[in-house]
């Protein structure tokens, strides 16, 4: 019990210190409030995967791999390919991560990433059909989180998108009445836009961009917006048990658009992507 009390006291002290700094427009690691950490994107790191990327956002590190197989479309969307994004915080990524099925936070992380890709129309799933109602491409993006230091949403989004940008899928030969036959030829995924997440944390009265684990430990609320390269907001998610004012949401949305452009440039370069 005394251990719990100590934690609370230490946390209060930290929160106090951070608020003092934020009032001066500064953060513990020296960044400005709307300044992100350095983002590094390396692609094709897993040769066996159809696409892959390793992303470092400060000390947060993730790897996304894309596997593509033949699949059967859902009965209610016979004219669309399959796209599934999953994530796992590997137990080697943090002293707090546990092996086992994803917890609610990791499910939320994967689902928000999935929605960003899906709702933006990044992949033209209508072109992933080999024979309507019967054979489609099934695209699985799996993200393994290797080191946790805050803002998994943006790191996982960047890795997912970079991995998809580098993905080559086998071309199939389709003959009437026969199963699809894999050929040696590879084709790119039908990319339509490049959606990326930008996340801010509210600590007391301040919104900060790209929070570290230390900042997340004291943040009150989290807000993520995914923007595409056509001026749209494609996904949004408020998180945690604090609230946000209407103005804070407006600020987060406009920041996401601005900063999203910068992230997009790095991701495209890291993925070697030329439209």
């Amino acid at each position: 019990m005394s251990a719990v009390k100590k934690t609370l006291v230490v946390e209060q002290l930290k929160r106090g210190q951070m608020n003092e700094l934020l009032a001066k427009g500064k953060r513990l690691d020296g960044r400005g409030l709307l300044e992100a950490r350095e983002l590094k994107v390396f692609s094709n790191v897993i040769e066996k995967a159809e696409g892959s990327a390793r992303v470092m956002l400060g000390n947060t590190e993730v790897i996304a791999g894309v596997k593509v197989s033949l699949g059967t479309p859902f009965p209610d969307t016979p004219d669309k390919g399959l796209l599934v994004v999953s994530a796992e915080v590997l137990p080697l990524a943090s002293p707090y991560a546990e092996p086992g099925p994803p917890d609610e936070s990791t499910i939320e992380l994967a689902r928000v990433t999935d929605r960003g890709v899906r709702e933006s129309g990044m992949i033209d799933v209508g072109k992933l059909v080999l024979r309507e109602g019967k054979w489609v491409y099934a695209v699985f993006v799996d993200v393994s989180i290797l080191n946790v230091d805050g803002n998994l949403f943006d790191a996982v989004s960047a890795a997912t998108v970079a991995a998809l940008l580098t993905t080559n899928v086998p071309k199939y030969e389709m003959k009437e009445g026969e199963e699809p036959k894999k050929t040696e030829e590879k084709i790119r995924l039908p990319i339509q836009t490049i959606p990326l997440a930008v996340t801010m944390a509210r600590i007391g009265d301040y919104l900060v961009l790209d929070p570290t684990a230390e900042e997340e430990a004291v943040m009150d609320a989290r807000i993520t917006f995914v923007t595409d390269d056509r001026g749209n907001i494609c996904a949004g998610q408020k998180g945690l048990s604090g609230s946000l004012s209407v103005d804070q949401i407006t600020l987060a949305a406009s920041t996401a658009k601005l900063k999203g452009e910068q992230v997009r440039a790095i991701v495209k370069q890291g993925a070697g992507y030329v439209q």
Partner: protein
Amino acid sequence: MGKAGGDSAALINEQGLRLDGRRIDELRPIRIEVGILRNADGSAYIQFGKNKIMAAVYGPKEVHPKHSALPDKSVLRCRYHMSPFSTEERKNPAPSRREIEISKVIREALEPALMLEDYPRTAIDVFVEVLQSDGGSRCAGISAASVALADAGINMRDLVSACAAGKVAGQIVMDVDDTEDKEGQADLPIAIMPMSSQVTLLQLDGQLNDEEFHKAFNFALDGCRRVYQLQREALIGKYFGNNGGNSDGGL
């Protein structure tokens, strides 16, 4: 969100009316009843369009296992669940990833309004059961749960009221229903504490440019405030009026 164009234009006719006859800034019919479950410490039933949702609160109560209790406040727990018969196709009763995520965001939408610090070392359980689903079940569930929390006598800073706006056939509309959600272009569910206008839930699926986003956001805020009036009326009706219970058994 469905096809970003296509035949979705038919979702709004030339008179500016939607498939179910609503104007673009009109809510679906809403009915809220308070205290209809006997065993729960607090409960509410909401009909929101075709949504039929029960919410119940148990607590503050002892926490098991004990080490998951908090020394300075109550632990809020939340389960959003759909009955197998609530959907077009039978839903597997095991919690889906969608239900797990929605349980989380509902909890986080309610928590800012609750004075959990008044109940240290306890737990408060909120159960939201969707008996019939329509578009916007998470918003309807939050609104019902918030009333159930008030019915349970939990200390609250404010109610939490929720409503979505969306983009349908190129237009921003209030309170998206199932068909509009599936065929439309964007869905923006939010929840607020109406007295302070603080936003406690925000999600967005779809494609909205800046102008559309702000318009939709304001529509949703407005919807929340209308829901708030109905929540207040239901609570006043229960505690000061005479329309208690659901004696006729109809859902």
